Every structure is written in structure tokens, then in C-alpha cells.
């Protein structure tokens, strides 16, 4: 029932609960509203929105006054203007004439307000406030232009829930600052930029100044699996000047991290590949597209029966679909894979087996609404920052947070319980947690009886893991095991979410680990309802989509099995399809290349020369290939060894879709024209495919696509989970979560509401047992466990982020985190160079002495900086699904003689 009000005489109808300011804005009347952020609650602090309201004394603040029916609001009266002018003069009087101007690439709302109220010079002389913080590489915090509206602080504390900045002091000496008034760079600020986006006067302004933008494009961030909505500002020359958040995006809700906010310098970087390259006489030389594509097509035909393709988890769904179509329908092979192998392949495999579906069962909003979150082996603050905001919100609402991780992460600030198991003992831990559920009657027996199968065998296995035994194996105290199990099984409200990351999957027992966490979630009945969920956090922006599109060796698109019937269906659409059994995983491809069995590889947007475990061995193996094609945006490590390099466009130069970790398919849109001669991946692959087809006498028109939209339509027609999605629909409605079986289906926020997509509709409990903690454990020669992972500021190997100067400024070197006791033992000092050596290689990096890691464990991010790359050390021991054991290998550490690039890795050894 709308309220009727008037604003300066104009009648308005407004919803109940709206503020007077809402009515004024709706009426199109101008009133300053400096501290009112569109995405935050009204604060009532700036006092520039004061108006007259009939029947109310004085000049109420319109932002915090609710409308009532029949209200008469006067904005423009001499009396109200006089008071507002006085407030504005006081505001302007805070600073020297800096507030008369707009800083480049920012806007100053105060300048607008002053102009509207006819203020030229305030009557109050400025007070000096020299505090300017330039420590952050991306933006400046300039108190000289700050009006203390606190929108930035609110964005940091209450929207992003990071809490790096606050209002310090009180009264006129108040300022915005960080803990102990340290420079921002030394605080817990993650440079997410929410403060920068909220500032109305340009007091927080970007360091990089670009010409004014002419175009704004809505697209999806290409970094991580959260899939934040971004708005790119583009100049006439096709430069990206700024990336803004998108408040209406359901996945990101107006938030970003440092990479999504400031990380797009790489798109216009001079290092971008602009022409095809062919290796002639040992050197890569520029070539034409025709030359390169002909050569590639020819070689693909030549090596057709010993061929493998690596699709890109950073590419679009359309890119991926075309690659696997090339492999399956033209190259007569199932040897297609992508980096999920190195990431969540055990999780996906376990989920497909147990639950019938290979993706997170819930939506991000369920994390926020859960009563308990168990986050296992995931440093989500670094790798999924915007999802982590949801966790923080949940904790603030009273949810219990249980963190399972051998190393301390930022989540520990919020955790109620921290389980710190020995690396590789997670199966025992999760069996032990399940034991407590069964033993104390906390399991959801109704769920187990009606919706699962395999209880008997599973519970027998679990019974062998009483807490006392588990405590011995894992090193976790019994009372913590009990507390965690109880909290997870019986949250005080709502449900529990089981969330996990690489700490579960990147082990030689990764699949067993995944079964362990899935089993526990099933035992507690935490699937199929809002507020609960079974949730692997997907890493790359489109690793979910790449698997959905079929770039895996043992499934067709949409996880349809390689059955006769399914192949027939695809064959009917494509003309033909391979009848061979499941193909090689990427790790198997590397091994096969080393043995000479795989002779040609098509590597798209992937970098096995940096990502594989035991790089010495992997590089050696891949160098055995007869023909290696690398298609990418930069010359990365693998490209340097390639026979042909093809320049691809970045996400900003093509149309397509990404699918994020909550199964939401979202649009990627062209913001600028392709750099140099680069072409979209799908177009390159299609062109290669056409040329191979014509050489093989196959129908090349199968690979004639007008647009990525058409590619998606083809995929949708063959793939039930995305059958109802199209570019058109996404443009109209925004992102849609699969399964979406038909065009009128709204998409699916929660899986398993009515059943599990398995033959009998039930989930399967898969018994698992704790085996050896890892393939290579410490010994006298190599006494420390190396754990590898990532850092917030660099994306994975660093190919992209080393081309963003601000990120390199923040993290210029690889740091090995070592416990103080170990540091003492091995003579290591903080921030000094150290040499870390395994049986497979050696690198020099910088030490970081911290108790975040426990004794006997090191941690390093695997980004390659200044020649140090952790994967020279890691062990190519595999889990049954081909996942390398990134999380555990044995190393030794010693102070290094001098800093500098790594000595060459030691000679490759066979595994």
C-alpha cells in the first residue's frame, strides 16, 4: 500500500519503509546526500540532506526520516537552504581548496553540492590535515579531501567485513586509518577497493590515471571461481581504465577483491601475444595465421592417434565446448582434459559417484544463512575473497565456524574451532567425526535411511575410527573432534555447509578425502535444503564450466557418461564421434609424452610447464613431444617450448559465458577489439578443426559458427543441465544456475532437494580408510613437509598477475613460511634468502618466519616469481584420478648464499 507524499509540491507515491530521501530522489529533486551510499544503510552523519517537513520541528535529515502518508516535504526553501549551506560551508572548510576540484578518474559530490548551493568560498578557513597515505600500490587515501562520511569504513567493516580501516580518534582530529594508524599497506587491507568505490569526494583515488572512459561493459571477472560481476570502463583507444563492482549481481552483490578491482592492466600489457609464432631453426618467429593454422592442421592429422588436448579453465564455456568437440569428433580421441585435474578432480569424481552431480550443491547465500560452516583445506580469504564475506556474515549472525587446516589462515580470526590435523590424515579425521555422529546419536538417521545407500559397509568402516585412535593418527585433540562433530551435526539454527578446497583434493588420497567429507555431510543430512550444502570451492573462473562443457577424458558435456547411447546422440549431432574408451588425464598425458606415446598436444590457456608437480620431470617429458601447440595471451613457460604459438584474445575481447562455483552461468562480453592479431579461442579452434576436417574428408561445416551464442545453443541442445540457457536469456535475466532443463525453468539454487541424480535417487556412502598419509614423507635427509598453495595477490602461477604492476609490488617474491622453532633449528632468518630442496629440484626464495605453520611444515605459494617456482619441488605422485600430491612432499631448507634467480632444477628423475 503505497504512501502519498509531496516533494516541493510534486506528488509522489512511495513504498512504505522508504525514507524521505528516497522520495526526494524519486521525485528527481536535487538534495546533497554525501554520506548516503546507495549500497549501505543511511548513516545520518553528513547532515547535508536536511529538509523541512510539515509538522516536524527544525530540519530533519531526509535520509533517516521515514516517509509517512500525507507527508509534505520541502527541499528548496530559504530556511532549509540556509542550514544546508552552513553545513556545506563547514564541510568545505575541512580542507584547502582541494575540494573544489575533481581528481582524475573520480568524482567529487561535494563540488556538486557547493555549486548547487551557490557557495564559492566557505566562510570557515581550512584546518590543516596533512595525512596522506600512499603506501597502497593501487590507490591513495588522502585525508585532505575526506569529509569523514565514513562510507569507506562502512564498506570495509560492514559490507566486505574485512575491517582494515576504521574511524580513528574523535572530534575534529578524527581520521580514516588502520590499526595503530599504520600505513594501509601494513594493515590487513586486501586492496579490495570497496572503500575506493564508496568514496564520494575522491579522497580515495586511483594511482593510475587514464583518459576518461567512453564505454561501460558489463561482464564477469576472469580470475576466480566466485564469478563476480564487473563493469569495465573503456577509453576510445580500447584501454581498460577501471573495473567497478556490480551491485545487482547475485553472486558477488557489489563486492570485488583486489584482482577484480585493480587487476586488468594485463589486458593492455605490451607482453600480449599479437601474432602467431612458428619455430624455425630453433627460434620462434612471427608467421601469418594461414601459415600457422595450416601447419597445425597438418600436424594434428599426422599425429592423430597420439594426440591430447588441454582446454582452458580460464576460457569460456564456448571455447571449451569447441575444443572437446574437436578432440572427440575429429581427432577420434577422448584425450581432453583441463586443470581441474590438478584441482578438484578428486572432488568432482567423488561427488559424481556418491551424489550424481559434480558441483556445489548450494548457492552462496546458503553459506550466509547456515548455522554452521566447516571449511576444510581452504584458505578462502586468499582464494575466494568474496565468498569469504558470506562466511563472515554468517559468523556475525551467530553461525559456528569450524576450520580444518594444518596452517593458520585468516578464517581463524572468526573460527570457533580449529582442527589442525597432520597433513594427509584427513580420512581418519573425517571418519572420526562421523564416528562421533553415530556414537552420540547425532546422525540424521531419517536422511540416511530414506535418502542414502551403503550405510552398512560405511558405518562398519567408520566404527574403526574412535576419537582416541583418530587423535593419535591426526594429532587433533579428542575434545576438539567431539566439539566439531557436535557443532556440525546440530547447528543451533538452519543447517551446516561442508566447504572444502585443495587441502582435501591435492593429495595422493584426494578422492578418499573427498569421500570422507561428503560422507560426513550426508551423515548429518546436510544436503538439499537452504542453509546447508556440500560445496567444493571451484578455483578458476570457468573450471566448473570447462568440465560442464565436457573437457574431461571420461565424460561428455554435462557429465553424460561415455555410453553407447550418449555417443550416438552426439554422433547424430556432430556427424561422428570417437568410440574409444575414456581418455588420458593431463597428468597421464604428461607421463605419456615422456614415454613417447603421446606425440602431439594442443594446449589452450594452460601452462603445464608451471602447474604440473615435479616440474623438472614434467618439462622434460613435454619436451619429448613432437608437436606442441600453445594458444594463449602471453608467452608463458610452456609457450617457450612450443612449436607453434597462437595468440588468443583475453576475456575482455570476446563474447561467451563462464560458470562459477555456484553453478551460475554468466555472460562475458566484448569490451575492446582483439589486441593485435589475436583471435578468440573458439574461433581459432574452429578454424583448426575445419582445416583438419577438410584434410580428413569430414564435414567442416560442423565447425562453422557465427557467434559464441550459437555455440552455446548447440551445447544446450545436447546437454540437459544447461538446456534451458541461452545468451539471449542470460542477457535478459542475468546469471542462471544449472540444472536448467528448459527455457522457462528459473534455474536451480539448491541441488538434491527431491533426490539425488543417481539410478535409485539415493546418495551413496562410500567407505574409505586411512592409508599412508602421503607418498613421500619426511626423513632424515628431507626432514620437512612442504605444503603448497596460493596467495591473494597472485593468480596461481602468476602468468597474468605478474603483468599487473601493483600486484607485483605487493608480492614481488615467493616466500616460504617456516615455524620459528624450525627457523632456529635450521638457522633461518626472516626475510632472508633460503634454498629449499627436494629430491626433484631446488629453488631459492625468501623466508617468512611465522607460527602460522606448525613445526615440521613449510608453506609456499606456487606462483613463479624471480625464477622461484614451488612446483620444481613437488611430487608427481598421483591419486587414482590423476591428481598430483601438491600438498605433501619432503624437503630440506637452508640459508641461501645469495638472493637471486633459482639455480637450474636438478636433473629430471623418473617417478
Amino acid at each position, binding site marked *: 500500500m503505497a504512501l502519498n507524499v509531496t516533494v516541493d509540491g510534486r506528488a509522489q507515491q512511495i513504498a512504505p519503509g522508504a525514507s524521505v530521501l528516497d522520495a526526494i530522489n524519486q521525485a528527481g529533486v536535487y538534495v546533497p546526500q554525501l554520506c548516503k551510499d546507495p549500497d549501505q544503510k543511511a548513516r545520518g552523519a553528513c547532515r547535508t540532506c536536511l529538509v523541512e517537513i510539515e509538522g516536524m520541528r527544525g530540519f530533519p535529515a531526509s535520509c533517516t526520516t521515514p516517509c509517512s502518508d500525507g507527508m509534505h516535504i520541502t527541499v528548496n526553501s530559504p530556511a532549509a537552504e540556509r542550514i544546508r549551506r552552513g553545513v556545506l560551508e*563547514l564541510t568545505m*572548510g575541512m580542507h584547502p581548496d582541494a575540494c573544489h576540484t575533481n581528481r582524475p578518474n573520480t568524482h567529487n559530490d561535494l563540488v556538486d553540492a557547493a555549486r548547487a548551493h551557490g557557495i564559492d568560498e566557505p566562510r*570557515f578557513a581550512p584546518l590543516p590535515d596533512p595525512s596522506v597515505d600512499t603506501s597502497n600500490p593501487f590507490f591513495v587515501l588522502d585525508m585532505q579531501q575526506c569529509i569523514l562520511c565514513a562510507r569507506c569504513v562502512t564498506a570495509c567493516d560492514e559490507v566486505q567485513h574485512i575491517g582494515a580501516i*576504521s574511524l580513528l580518534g*574523535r572530534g575534529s582530529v578524527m581520521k580514516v586509518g588502520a590499526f*595503530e594508524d599504520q600505513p594501509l599497506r601494513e594493515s590487513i587491507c586486501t586492496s579490495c577497493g570497496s572503500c575506493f568505490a564508496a568514496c564520494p569526494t575522491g579522497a580515495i583515488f586511483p594511482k593510475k590515471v587514464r583518459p576518461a572512459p567512453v564505454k561501460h561493459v558489463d561482464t564477469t571477472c576472469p580470475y576466480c571461481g566466485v564469478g563476480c560481476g564487473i563493469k569495465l570502463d573503456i577509453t576510445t583507444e580500447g584501454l581498460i581504465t577501471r573495473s567497478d563492482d556490480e551491485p545487482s549481481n547475485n553472486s558477488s552483490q557489489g563486492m570485488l577483491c583486489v584482482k577484480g578491482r585493480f587487476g586488468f592492466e594485463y589486458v593492455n600489457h605490451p607482453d600480449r601475444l599479437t601474432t602467431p609464432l612458428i619455430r624455425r631453426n630453433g627460434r620462434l618467429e612471427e608467421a601469418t595465421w594461414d601459415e600457422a593454422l595450416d601447419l597445425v592442421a597438418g600436424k594434428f592429422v599426422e599425429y592423430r592417434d597420439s594426440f591430447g588436448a588441454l582446454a582452458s579453465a580460464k576460457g569460456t564455456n564456448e571455447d571449451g565446448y569447441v575444443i572437446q568437440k574437436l578432440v572427440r569428433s575429429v581427432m577420434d580421441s577422448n584425450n581432453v582434459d583441463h586443470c581441474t585435474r590438478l584441482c578438484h578432480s578428486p572432488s568432482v569424481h567423488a561427488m559424481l559417484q556418491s551424489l550424481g552431480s559434480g558441483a556445489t550443491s548450494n548457492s552462496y547465500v546458503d553459506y550466509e544463512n547456515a548455522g554452521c560452516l566447516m571449511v576444510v583445506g581452504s584458505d578462502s580469504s586468499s582464494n575466494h575473497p568474496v565468498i569469504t564475506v558470506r562466511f563472515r556474515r554468517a559468523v556475525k549472525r551467530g553461525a559456528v565456524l569450524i576450520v580444518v587446516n594444518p596452517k593458520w589462515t585468516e578464517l581463524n580470526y572468526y573460527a570457533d574451532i580449529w582442527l589442525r590435523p597432520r597433513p594427509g590424515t584427513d580420512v581418519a579425521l573425517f571418519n572420526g567425526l562421523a564416528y562421533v555422529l553415530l556414537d552420540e546419536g547425532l546422525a540424521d538417521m531419517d536422511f540416511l535411511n530414506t535418502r542414502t545407500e551403503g550405510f552398512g559397509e560405511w558405518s562398519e568402516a567408520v566404527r574403526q575410527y574412535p576419537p582416541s585412535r583418530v587423535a593419535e593418527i591426526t594429532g587433533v585433540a579428542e575434545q576438539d573432534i567431539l566439539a566439531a562433530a557436535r557443532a556440525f551435526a546440530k547447528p543451533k539454527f538452519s543447517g551446516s555447509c561442508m566447504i572444502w578446497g585443495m587441502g582435501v583434493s591435492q593429495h595422493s588420497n584426494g578422492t578418499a578425502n573427498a569421500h570422507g567429507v561428503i560422507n560426513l555431510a550426508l551423515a548429518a543430512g546436510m544436503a538439499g535444503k537452504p542453509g546447508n550444502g556440500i560445496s567444493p570451492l571451484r578455483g578458476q573462473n570457468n573450471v566448473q564450466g570447462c568440465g560442464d562443457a565436457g573437457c574431461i577424458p571420461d565424460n561428455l558435456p554435462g557429465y553424460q557418461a561415455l555410453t553407447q547411447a550418449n555417443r550416438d546422440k552426439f554422433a547424430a549431432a556432430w556427424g561422428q564421434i570417437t568410440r574409444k574408451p575414456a581418455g588420458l588425464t593431463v597428468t597421464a598425458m604428461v607421463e605419456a609424452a615422456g614415454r613417447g606415446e603421446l606425440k602431439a598436444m594442443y594446449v589452450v590457456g594452460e601452462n603445464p610447464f608451471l602447474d604440473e608437480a615435479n616440474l623438472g620431470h614434467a618439462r622434460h617429458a613435454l619436451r619429448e613431444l613432437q608437436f606442441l601447440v600453445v594458444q594463449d595471451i602471453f608467452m608463458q613457460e610452456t609457450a617457450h617450448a612450443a612449436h607453434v604459438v597462437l595468440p588468443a584474445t583475453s576475456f575482455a575481447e570476446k563474447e561467451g559465458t563462464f560458470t562459477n562455483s555456484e553453478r551460475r552461468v554468466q555472460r562475458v562480453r566484448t569490451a575492446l577489439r582483439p589486441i593485435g592479431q589475436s583471435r578468440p579461442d573458439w574461433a581459432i579452434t574452429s578454424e583448426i578443426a575445419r582445416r583438419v576436417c577438410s584434410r580428413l574428408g569430414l564435414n567442416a561445416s560442423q565447425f562453422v559458427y557465427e557467434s559464441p551464442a550459437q555455440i552455446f545453443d548447440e551445447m544446450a541442445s545436447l546437454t540437459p543441465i544447461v538446456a534451458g540457457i541461452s545468451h539471449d536469456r542470460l542477457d535478459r535475466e542475468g546469471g542462471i544456475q544449472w540444472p536448467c532443463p528448459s527455457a522457462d525453468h528459473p534455474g536451480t539454487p539448491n541441488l538434491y532437494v527431491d533426490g539425488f541424480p543417481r539410478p535409485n535417487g539415493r546418495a551413496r556412502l562410500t567407505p574409505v580408510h586411512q592409508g599412508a598419509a602421503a607418498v613421500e614423507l619426511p626423513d632424515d635427509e628431507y626432514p620437512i613437509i612442504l605444503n603448497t598453495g596460493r596467495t591473494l595477490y597472485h593468480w596461481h602461477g602468476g602468468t597474468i598477475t605478474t603483468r599487473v604492476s601493483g600486484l607485483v609490488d605487493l608480492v614481488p617474491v615467493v616466500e616460504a613460511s617456516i615455524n620459528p622453532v624450525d627457523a632456529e633449528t635450521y638457522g633461518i632468518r626472516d626475510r632472508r634468502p633460503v634454498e629449499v630442496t627436494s629430491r626433484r629440484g631446488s629453488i631459492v626464495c*625468501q623466508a617468512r618466519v611465522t607460527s602460522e605453520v606448525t613445526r615440521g611444515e613449510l608453506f609456499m605459494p606456487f606462483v613463479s616469481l624471480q625464477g622461484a617456482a614451488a612446483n620444481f619441488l613437488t611430487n608427481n605422485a598421483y591419486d587414482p584420478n590423476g591428481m598430483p600430491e601438491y600438498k605433501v612432499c619432503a624437503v630440506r631448507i637452508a640459508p641461501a648464499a645469495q638472493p637471486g634467480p633459482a639455480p637450474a632444477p636438478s636433473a629430471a628423475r623418473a617417478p
Partner: protein
Amino acid sequence: MQEKRPRPRTRRPVESPAAPPPGNQDLIARVQGYPRRRTYLLPALIDVQHELSWLPPWALEAVGVHVRVPRSEVYGIASSFPDLRLSEPAAEVTRVCRGASCRQRGAAAPKGDSADCLFVCGVGPAVELHGRLSGRDAPPPPPLAEGMLLQDGTCTRAVYDSGQQRSARKVGCPGNCWQAPAWSEDGGLTWLSHDGQLWQAPGNLRLLKNIGRIEPLAGAADAYQALQRAHSMGSDAVWRLVKDAGLRGRGGAYFPLGAKWETARSTPAARKFLLVNAEEGEPGIYKDRHLLEGDPHRVIEGLLIAALAIGATDVVIFVNGEAHLAHERLLAALQRARTLGAERVPVEVRLGAGGYVLGEETALINAIHGQRAEPLARPPFPAVSGLYGTPTVINNVESLANLPDIVLNGAEWFRSLGTSGNPGTKLVSLAGAVARPGLYEVPLGVPLRSIVHDYGGGTIGTIGSMLVGGPSGSILPTSLLDTPFDVQPLQNVGGVLGAGGIVPLTDDQCPVAAVRELSAYNARESCGKCTPCREGTVRMLHMLDDLPHTDLDTLDDLNDVLAFGSLCGLGQMAPNPVRALLLHFSDIVAEHTRGGCRFGVCTWP
């Protein structure tokens, strides 16, 4: 090993908390004993500062981790409370009180730190040496026999160590600060001091009637009888009674209790709070401490009656962090009340850490929530949504202390003193240029002259002006001594009643300088949230400091911006003393604009 290249500095966002220095395990354990909720942020910080005398970074972080508030926020919140120290203090701290009445009584210019008020105005000028308060010189009493009563409270301890008298019974102080240290040989009816003066508290004692006669923790003979009667009357009847009695809030706003209670009563909620405001931050006001030190059971009884009438499920008492004796006696009395079975709802006591702005209801609520000491926009008003989102009534200690007598004696009785618009008595903190500075219970409506002469024993020297109502109050000329001491009559002459502080100043004190000190206080105490107050109070101070270059029209505009634009009462009422100055002392102001101060006090570079 020598290194030629500078070591690169890597960003370490995932910084785990700094380890506490060794030897702090007990303190850490105490911090970790609090529930892990933000509302325990301030109590934990106060605990830490009590132990370490300041808040070092590692401690801020430890508290933040425990209550799950990021450390920058903890630091920022701590910095909004003036009594929390974020840098290590000097080993020995001296504070000299620079409040109006202490200055009138000859406070020295501080060599060390100055305090805005040490809250022992009656025995000023006051100084705090290494944490010990000390007031004016006073001859000690002779050895007192058993059965004699010795006045014993924070103020009296500032002039005399009551521990020296073992035989006498220690009772609360009946309000004769001027006479301290005083004793009674007749059970508290009359009081003696070493210089031979005899004093009896001026009549009409209601709030103060037990103080000085009973041992504070024992309570009066009729303690909790009113509460019993209230329970048998029932919530509705008690509310109606208080409404009929017309009791208005004694914290300075004079809002009718019955109306405030009604809003809370009529808001349906599973939990409702009564928040007792014992922060008493206004300089020159110490009446609530006095009640808590001298007759804590009366206050407790009053709040329990209020809780019943409101339908409160919980009570929180917020006590000034430096009111140690009041806090101690309140806790002990609560303990006793519990054993007597009087406490039917849980009562939690919280300590404050300073801040005049906590006189604003939502700022007080924010402090308890573990947020910065700053107000929120209203609506919603606390009676609808206050503490933890529940309907919350905030009442002043003095207001609540009136309730037991109202319940026992009725509305008519209550109305028999005071005025029809504002019935009852008011505790007046009278100090400055009077012979007998003290705490006096005065029927509302009596003329100021009566307070100064009949209660205060007349002036010392000739008075030239009077500060009435504190920093949000006014300065009045002697020509207005006949003004009745009530809200409207004072308002009519540009005065403010406030919480009951009256400080006559001798005619050698410059009114401009006196108002300048009040403005400086407001500027210091501004929480900073809203632009008019944060910027305006400082500008106002600059203008008063530089009257020769001040445009009085601009000053007038500034007063309006503050009065109409500020978010809360601190800013809204900051112009009051200045307006009163301009209204009543215009010739002195005019003289100052021409660069002259006939008192020889104000100078300009």
C-alpha cells in the same frame, strides 16, 4: 652474510595475531573468559587497561580475536573513548582539574595533564596524583568515638583518609561537601567539622534522607518495602502511578518517565531492557555517584520498580569507569539484594570509559554494543529498538531513586513539592563562589537566589555571573537570580536547567573566558560523527578565541547550523552557552570584539 640487494618487502595480509609478551597468561585468560561477542569488547578493553594501564597493540589484537572484531575496528573504537589509552602513559601521571568550579576556587595552571572534571567539585580545587584524588586542604577530625558517624565518600576521601578512624561508623555523605571531613554525634541529624561549624541538611529531604544516617550497604530499615508493594500493585498500576506523579527524567532532558515507559510497554518484544545511566559524564555533576555511594539499595529498589513497570526482562547499569567507590558499593549492594530475593530480573553492571556524548541514549547503547561512542540517527528511538534491537528504556539514577517513595507515598505526595509542570525535588551540584559548596536536594521551582543563599550559605565575594546547566547549559547574570529553578522559566531567559549544576562565578571572572572553556569542552568531546558538531564546535571555539576578528552574524549562523544540523544533543546544545553570553553579556562581548577584556583575562596575540 652480506647482502647487496635490499630485501623486497612482501605484503602479508594473512597476518596471524602477534603473540602476547610472556607473563600475561592470566590477563589473556580473563579476556578469553568473556563470551565471544562484540558486546564484551569494551569490558575486555577496560579489564586490560586496568591491568596494564594502557592498551598495547598485542592486547587490542587479542581482545579483537576473542570477540571477533577486526583489530582496526578495535583500535578505532578504543580511540573514541577518552579514558582508554592507546599509548603508554608516563610512569606517574598528575592531573589538575580545570573545571569551572575548581578554577573559581583557584585551580593552578597544570604543569602536567589537565582533567575536564574530577567530579569532586565540592572539595575543589581537585588534583589527581598517581591515581589518588586530593582536594582542598582540610583540618582532620579528632578521634571519633564509637557510635559517631563519619561522612565517607569519594569527595571526603579526597580531603581525609577515613581509614584513620576505626571506631566511628562510616556512612554516606549527606551533601555537606564544604564541611568535609565532617562527623555526627547525633545519628546524622547534625554535622560537625573541625572549625566548629554545625550544619543540618536543609529540609525536604527525600532522595538524600537516608544518606549519612545508614551504612550504605546495610540499607535503610524500609529497604525494598516499596518494591514489595509495587509487585503487589502490578506493572500497569505502577506505570499509571508514575505517570500521575509526573516525574520527569533527571538526567537533563526532563522527559516524562511515564511517557517513555509507555512506548516500551506498548512495543511487543520477547526481551525488553532497562538501561540505567550511571555514566554521569557531565563536568560538575556528581549526584548519581553520590546516591550510589550513600544509598545504593535505594537506587536498586528504584530500578527494580521501573523494570516491573516497563515489563523489562533485563537490566543493565552503566557506571562511569572512574566512579570506583560507587561501582564497588553498587556491586556489593546488588549481591545483597539478590540474597534478599529482591532481584527478579538479571541485572548486569557495565563500566564506561568516558565520553560526554554517552549522555545521548544511542551513543550509550552503541558503547554497550561494542561500537564507537557515537549516536545513531533516530528513529528508531531506543524505547522501540535499543539494546540488541530490543525496546529499551534509559533512565537516570536520580530519576529511579525517586520511585520507592512514590510507590509508598503516592502521586499526590510527590506533587506536593516542586511545580505542577515539573514536580518533585532535584539534586543540585552547587559549587564555585559559594560558602557551602555541596549537593543539595531542592524543590523544583525555587528561585536561584534561594539555592545560592539558603542552601549554599551565600556567596564568597561578589558574583558577576552564574553557570547553570554545564557545557550544554548557560551563563546568566546576577540580575536573573530570581528566576525559578525549573525548565521553562530558565528557558525563557535563555538559560538551561540541565542536570542541576550551578557554579556562581565572582565578578573578576570573565564570562567570555568561562564560556570559552565550555566551548572548548564541547569541541573536545564531540564524537566527530556529524559535520555540524565536529567542525562547528571547533569553529565556534576559534571564533570565541578571536573575537576581534569574528563576525557576529557568522557566529549566529554557526549557532543555528549547530542547533538545527547536529545529529544529537551535544552539538544541538553546544550553542546554548554562547547564545546566553551574547544575550546577557553583550557589552562585554562587544568590548572583546574591540580587543579588550576588562577582567584582564582574555588576551590576543
